[in-house]
């Protein structure tokens, strides 16, 4: 690591721990069990939006992220229902299934330019949804899949059993999966692999000519991101206890677009940006339940305004403001402040 890494500032560990602690107690503070379900949805969306951003690190946008969520969801549900495996097995295996599907499509998809890649991911997700929708024998077709088991009790010797089946306990289980996942994604981004990904995004021919096997790295990126989408899907399935693959469902094209909005509104330039966007927008949509039909309109307007007014999103804009007017800028020489302002891209 160089003396001053230009890419991202290190997230202060203390701040992160505080954040995680906050997320852990927040639903409890709110009162009713209802909040646990909401927050479960929030952190699932956070994982989805953050893993979507991983793909963005190589300069691609996937409009089909929910397709891999679907593979993870149905995979885990079916493995637990038809084959009888416990959740601690079905969830990771289902995520691997999502990664496997990603691997199959990765090569042809990543060969083409960014715009076409985006539309191909859309195609893939819709195809997966239609397969789930039509495969009556496996997925219950239009009636959906119901009765997905929750997690069984965890037996700890001498302490008895911890039930994870209740909605509040499930939240903690989900948190136990999501937080380490985010940690992994963060470490990846800061690793040499992440650096090479960004090099591919910023100057692919140059990266190639210094020896980076670009296709391999892009495929690794896509497969890893889709693994976590599958993981999120599996968490979703066992929390909801039911799945359906309607066009209006969680797995419709619209939801993929929501994820992109979460990423952009929160700020695609920083690691926590998508998390911020996902949290804010998910909470808003869950709370404003009365005006449910109007939500997409509001979200759509926010997305468009965000693109036009704030190219870096909320987190990015806040970061820029902090660098420009915060304590460090006050101490720096004028030229450095100029650089700080121009530092984002």
């Amino acid at each position, binding site marked *: 690591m160089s003396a001053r890494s230009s890419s991202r500032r290190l997230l202060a560990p203390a701040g992160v721990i505080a954040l995680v602690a906050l997320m852990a107690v927040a639903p409890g503070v709110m009162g009713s069990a209802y909040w646990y379900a909401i927050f479960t949805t929030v952190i699932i969306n956070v994982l989805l939006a953050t893993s979507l951003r991983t793909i963005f690190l190589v300069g691609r946008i996937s409009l089909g992220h929910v397709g891999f969520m679907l593979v993870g969801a149905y995979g885990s549900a079916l493995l637990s229902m038809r084959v009888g495996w416990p959740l601690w097995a079905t969830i990771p295996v289902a995520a691997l299934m999502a990664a496997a599907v990603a691997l199959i499509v990765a090569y042809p998809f990543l060969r083409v330019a960014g715009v076409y890649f985006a539309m191909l991911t859309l195609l*893939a997700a819709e195809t997966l949804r239609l397969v789930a929708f039509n495969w009556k024998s496996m997925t219950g077709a239009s009636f959906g899949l119901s009765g997905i088991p929750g997690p069984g009790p965890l037996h700890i010797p001498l302490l008895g059993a911890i039930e994870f089946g209740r909605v509040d306990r499930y939240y903690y289980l989900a948190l136990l999966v999501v937080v380490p996942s985010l940690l992994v994604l963060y470490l990846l981004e800061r690793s040499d692999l992440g650096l090479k990904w960004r090099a591919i995004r910023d100057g692919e021919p140059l990266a190639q000519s210094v020896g980076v096997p670009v296709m391999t790295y892009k495929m690794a990126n896509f497969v890893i991101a889709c693994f976590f989408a599958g993981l999120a899907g599996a968490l979703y399935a066992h929390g909801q206890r039911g799945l359906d693959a309607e066009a209006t469902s969680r797995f419709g094209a619209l939801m993929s677009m929501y994820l992109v909005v979460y990423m952009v509104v929160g700020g695609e330039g920083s690691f926590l940006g998508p998390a911020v966007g996902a949290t804010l927008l998910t909470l808003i949509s869950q709370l404003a339940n009365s005006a449910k039909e109007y939500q997409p309109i509001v979200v759509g307007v926010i997305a468009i305004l965000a693109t036009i007014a704030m190219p870096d999103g909320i987190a990015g804009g806040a970061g820029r403001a902090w660098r420009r007017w915060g304590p460090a800028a006050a101490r720096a020489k004028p030229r450095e402040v100029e650089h700080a302002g121009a530092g984002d891209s």
Partner: protein
Amino acid sequence: MDVSPQLLWQSLINGFALGWLYILMALGLSLIFGITRIMQFAHGEIYMVGGYVVYLFSVSLHLNLYLSILLAMVIVGAFGLLLYYGLFKRFSGQMVNPIIISVGLTLILQSAMIVTFGLSQRNLPRLAQGHFTVLGSPVPQDRILVIGVSFVLVLALYVALKKHRYGQAMVASVQSPEGALLQGISHVRMGAISMFLGSALAAAGGGLAGSVFQLTPFMGNQPLIKGLVIIVLGGLGSIPGVVAGGIMLGVLDGVMPVVIGSGWAAIIPLVIVMIVLIVKPTGLWGYER
């Protein structure tokens, strides 16, 4: 394979008609992208909105269906112009921002239609009642009319691009932006025309689909994807290519679900696209600058 010839024949005709609707979508997308370098991911919603506008004219106002379609083409085309000047033009050539704009538009338009018209499907008046008899089998007249109307529209576009000065400039611009500037027509104006024409074509498609099939707020999703598949297969900037690709895809979509079941049939476009991309992805990065 116990499918009656009757059913097969019906699905073939259906598929053919469907194919032409896809062609209308794909041509618009291709034109817009070829000239402005913006992939209008909300194009499916334009198609859908077009269908509902036709509904307003033909059902609520009791106007003649064909007249309604024509009016819808003009109005939706103008809407496309508005979107271009207001939203898309400033992001010409970029990838990320137009996607976000398109996403936002999709959310807004789909929900606006759900709020206004509800989720249940509606129907437009039939283009025609009755059947022709071809080779002893009945062929619904409205399917034939869909094919006919679409063909006329596509032909009109083809002629306009070949003969008209603006059209020639637009074709040249798809190959190289500098060439068109030599003709003295600004890039912005060509972008606007492409948005107008593309949206108008999509609206016509939506209206025809609403008559032969049905109107739902989600009817734009599949045609958008099929349009994208056709561009991958048929290439950018080639009307014959899009027509060929559209008919082929439409027929597959019409016939395959009957023959091998809708589950398996859904995978076919994806598999075809993947094979094409592995074997011959030319023209897909050839146009990227």
